[in-house]
């Protein structure tokens, strides 16, 4: 009698409604190292199932192979680890993942998995996967709380999908051929008996376990349950093989390619459109490349890209998950110039990284800034520059791709030139070029750039290299020599915000009037909008946002085709004074009335100069009173209008005549209305006499400035005394409404009479 399919009995009962305490014939507990089976079916010679309750089947330690139970837990721990926090969790099992799970070489690990699955097959029946059906049924009746025991079969199904591009001589779309190879089934088994009946339910069970039982805590299902008709039964497996784990490790590089930062949010549709452009240029798996162009994969990819961006920590990783960062070639500008290396520091990088340099010397790299470790005193050789260099430690590796042309830009944090991936737009850069490419370089620069010049190398550069500075590529040549792509500024694959006056408020925040320029990759094909209004790029694809008169807003939106980019603008930071944390002052040492230059001070907010020092910030000088020059005496300020002034002091002889002059030419040119004139009066003015040449009050008029009684003689000079006396004989008198002035004037007349 043929065994019946246990799925049939429970197929019509929804998984979530199944009783959890149903007694079944087979149940497994979650002890990976020594699984215990209670009852159930007999295992075959390839191990995995025990016949008697309480007796463990052969384990890895005993047989050298993993059982299905061990693989089930291994797969679950690897792909569905607790703490996934609702992120999409595809069962993207491929050779590399199998190797990582099993700790063996890739091929051996995959074979070990396939062997464990083969051990549960029932050849010669109408359902080759009957035992997995049974496991599924028991697991459901037990409440689905344990790891799905049939995960190894699903893993093999995905593994077969992941190999679809790999086999020579086999159609890349031939899924069953790869599955038969893994399960060692003869070609006559077509279709594979029981596959179509069994697999959909197993996938459903996995989705239920992830989404309902664990509520996404072990990741969300990304299984495709509505594939196209021609892949109806294998669509679920194909959907899991789209982005392998190694592909997802590389998404960090994709996000950095887009110049994103951790925390950035980008519309999933936009992300997918850029992923489609990026995928063919990078060593992703064939499945990932195929999925990138497959409309049926779009929704899953959108979910994965958005979820991975949300959880991205800023790092770039290799396929094994090890953090990969860049090495930059640096050229110090200070005398004597030196060529060195600097290791990039990405988000989440440690404060100190231990690496081994070529030659075996171990060094510890200390963080310099958020972007860089301290430069490494290791001048790269000619060979290392041309062929590349990789230095690494346990958890991080740094790579310098080999090149014949390194583009160098000033790096404000390193304080020197540092190599960059591509030349920046609107900024001059330098290029370190190998002599073998001299003719190509000169041809390129002569045709496309201005202002550049070759510099003497001194002793800083390796033999065979030369340096050109001041390069600004103005036009992209049609025949760009290979290897010089980095010299061509690329505004970015995303909508690029270039230039502008950015404010230190985090993210893309700009001063109003200083909004950046947007570069549109294909201005003729894509419609552009700024805050919902159509915007026309110029011939170079540039939209100068600063000319649109945008008002301050927490979010401006630039839309180009399906892609959007947001930024915000501020009219002002609201500060009356610039940020106090960035003070910079000229330091002067005071030595009596002499001052000597003392470099620069970077004082903290509120700090004052130490004794003997004066700081100059802008027009302000600060220091203790004994170190600062005395303030000048305030000048006497007189209104324009009269023809001349006489200023009279209390002491006979204190007299100043001030002719009223025309406004200075510079003030007239500047459009200033000259209402006052000034005089440096060496005495305290008591009377100010003004002579009006015209008008109803023509003649002299007197005004009391300060009430002071007449004093002693200020001089013995008879001419000065006569002039002082003459001021009181001009026939003018104070306003009678001011009795104090009248009385005082009389006193001065008396004093003048005594002279």
């Amino acid at each position, binding site marked *: 009698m043929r065994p019946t399919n246990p799925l049939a009995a429970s197929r019509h009962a929804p998984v979530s409604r199944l009783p959890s305490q149903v007694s079944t014939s087979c149940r497994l507990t979650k002890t990976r190292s020594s699984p215990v089976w209670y009852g159930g079916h007999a295992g075959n010679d390839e191990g995995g199932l025990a016949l008697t309750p309480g007796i463990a089947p052969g384990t890895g330690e005993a047989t050298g192979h993993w059982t299905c139970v061990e693989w089930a837990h291994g797969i679950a721990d690897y792909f569905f680890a607790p703490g996934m926090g609702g992120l999409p969790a595809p069962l993207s099992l491929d050779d590399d993942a199998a190797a990582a799970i099993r700790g063996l070489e890739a091929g051996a690990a995959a074979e070990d998995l396939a062997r464990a699955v083969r051990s549960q097959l029932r050849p010669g029946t109408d359902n080759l996967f009957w035992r997995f059906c049974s496991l599924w049924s028991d697991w459901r009746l037990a409440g689905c709380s344990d790891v799905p025991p049939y995960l190894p079969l699903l893993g093999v199904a995905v593994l077969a999908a992941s190999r679809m591009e790999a086999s020579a001589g086999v159609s890349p779309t031939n899924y069953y051929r790869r599955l038969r190879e893994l399960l060692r089934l003869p070609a006559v088994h077509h279709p594979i008996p029981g596959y179509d009946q069994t697999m959909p339910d197993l996938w459903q069970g996995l989705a239920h376990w992830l989404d309902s039982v664990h509520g996404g805590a072990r990741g969300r299902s990304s299984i495709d349950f509505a594939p196209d008709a021609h892949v109806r039964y294998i669509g679920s497996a194909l959907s899991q093989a789209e982005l392998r784990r190694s592909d997802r490790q590389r998404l960090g590089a994709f996000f950095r390619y887009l110049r994103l930062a951790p925390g950035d949010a980008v519309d999933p549709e936009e992300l997918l459109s850029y992923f489609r452009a990026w995928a063919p240029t990078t060593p992703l798996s064939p499945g990932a490349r195929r999925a990138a162009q497959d409309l049926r994969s779009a929704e899953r990819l959108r979910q994965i890209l958005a979820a991975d961006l949300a959880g991205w920590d800023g790092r770039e990783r290799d396929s094994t998950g090890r953090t990969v960062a860049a090495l930059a070639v640096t*050229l110090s*500008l200070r005398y004597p110039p030196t060529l060195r290396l600097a290791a990039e520091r990405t988000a989440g990088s440690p404060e100190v990284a231990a690496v081994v340099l070529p030659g075996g010397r171990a060094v510890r790299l200390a963080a310099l800034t958020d972007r860089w470790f301290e430069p490494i005193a290791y001048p790269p050789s000619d060979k290392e520059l041309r062929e590349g260099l990789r230095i690494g430690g346990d958890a991080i590796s740094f790579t310098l791709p080999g090149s014949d042309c390194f583009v160098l830009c000033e790096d404000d944090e390193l304080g020197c030139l540092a190599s960059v991936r591509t030349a920046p737009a609107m900024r001059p850069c330098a290029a370190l070029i190998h002599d073998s490419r001299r003719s190509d370089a000169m041809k390129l620069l002569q045709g496309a750039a201005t202002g550049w010049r070759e510099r*003497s190398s001194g002793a800083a550069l390796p033999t065979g290299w030369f340096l050109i500075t001041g390069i600004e590529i103005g036009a992209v040549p049609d025949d760009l020599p290979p290897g010089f792509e980095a010299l061509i500024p690329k505004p970015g694959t995303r909508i690029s915000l270039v230039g502008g006056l950015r404010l230190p408020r985090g993210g893309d925040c700009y001063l109003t009037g200083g909004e950046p320029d947007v570069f549109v990759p294909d201005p003729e094909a894509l419609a552009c909008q700024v805050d919902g209004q159509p915007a026309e790029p110029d011939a170079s694809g540039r939209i100068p946002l600063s000319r649109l008169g945008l008002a301050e807003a927490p979010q401006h939106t630039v839309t180009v085709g399906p892609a959007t980019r947001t930024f915000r603008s501020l009219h002002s930071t609201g*500060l009356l004074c610039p940020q106090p944390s960035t003070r910079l002052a*000229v330091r002067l040492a005071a030595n009596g009335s002499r001052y000597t230059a003392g470099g620069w001070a970077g004082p903290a907010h509120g700090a004052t100069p130490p004794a003997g020092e004066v700081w100059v910030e802008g027009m302000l000088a600060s220091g203790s009173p004994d170190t600062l020059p005395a303030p*000048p005496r305030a000048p006497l300020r007189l209104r324009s209008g009269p023809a001349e002034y006489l200023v009279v002091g209390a002491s006979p002889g204190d007299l100043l005549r001030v002719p009223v002059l025309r406004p200075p030419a510079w003030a007239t040119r500047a459009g200033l209305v000259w*209402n006052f004139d000034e005089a440096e009066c060496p005495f305290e003015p008591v009377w100010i006499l003004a002579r009006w040449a015209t008008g109803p009050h023509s003649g002299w008029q007197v005004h009391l400035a300060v009430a002071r009684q007449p004093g002693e003689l200020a001089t013995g000079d008879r001419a000065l005394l006569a*002039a002082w006396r003459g001021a009181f004989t001009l026939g003018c008198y104070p306003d009678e409404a001011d009795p104090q002035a009248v009385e005082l004037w009389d006193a001065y007349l008396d004093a003048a009479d005594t002279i």
Partner: protein
Amino acid sequence: MNWNLLLEWVSEFGGGSWPRLRDACAWLGARGTSDRWWSAHQLSCFGHLEIDWDAQRWAAPPPALTMLPRGGGFAIAAGGRTRSFRVALEEAAADRDTLWLTVVGQHEAPDALFIQCEDEREVARLAADIGVAFDELAADRIGHLLPETDAPVRAYPDGPPNRGFETVRFDADAMAWTSAARMDAPGLYRVEVYWRHETWWSPAPGRFGPVPQAEGMYLELARRGRNVLHWEADARSGTFIVPQAVPLPVLQARAAFLCSGLAPSLSGGALHYVNVPYAIAGRISRSLRQELEIARTADPAGPAVRARGQGGAPASR
């Protein structure tokens, strides 16, 4: 170049690295490295910015108000100029009957903000009300503070510091740079070290010291005994005339600028700083080891006929 926007941005940003400022200058229209450097240097000369070129960093100083010397009761706003500051200044001036704010646009500098008063105590109160500093006469104070130009030098027993790099030498007679293969004679040299120039002063064979270019040129002019600074008197004050080929160092330029609040005009190959009193021009010249030459005296009587005490502009030094 939109100078106002540049000043507003440096003030709102506060401070940072030279590449950041250079990029802002580039985006605002300064073409080429020298234009970008010049734009930042100009702001520094006007007291709107401090730049430590060695450390490649800059900071916007706090805003402040100061009177102009013999300036007809005009004060100016110098230092940083955030938009909030400008609004506060305009509103505070509008509320007063005794102060008048005039904005003067300039071609090669940010707007000059003039505040006219009869009594500078009104300006001091205005400054206090909006929370900024006031200096009675910053031009005079900075003029007093100017250190004498000097450059520490040391021996270079292994040879001059230009090995392998293009070098030019300052010709004090022509006030121009000429190619130089060696650095063995005393003088001022400029070595083109990749991205930037380094200027070295050599007062004696084998001894060198790094020096900012502007200071170095005046050291060399002094070594050669050449006086190039002139002062031309007018009725009230005078015009300080500086050859364009040897512009003033930053602090000296700032002292001259603060006499009028206006950028110097260029005429006949020379920069003309207006409304510079003789005393301030003299201090600037002395700090640069220059003897100030009197160009001519338009009004020998000076601004006032003094009955006693010090006179106005001297007939000669």
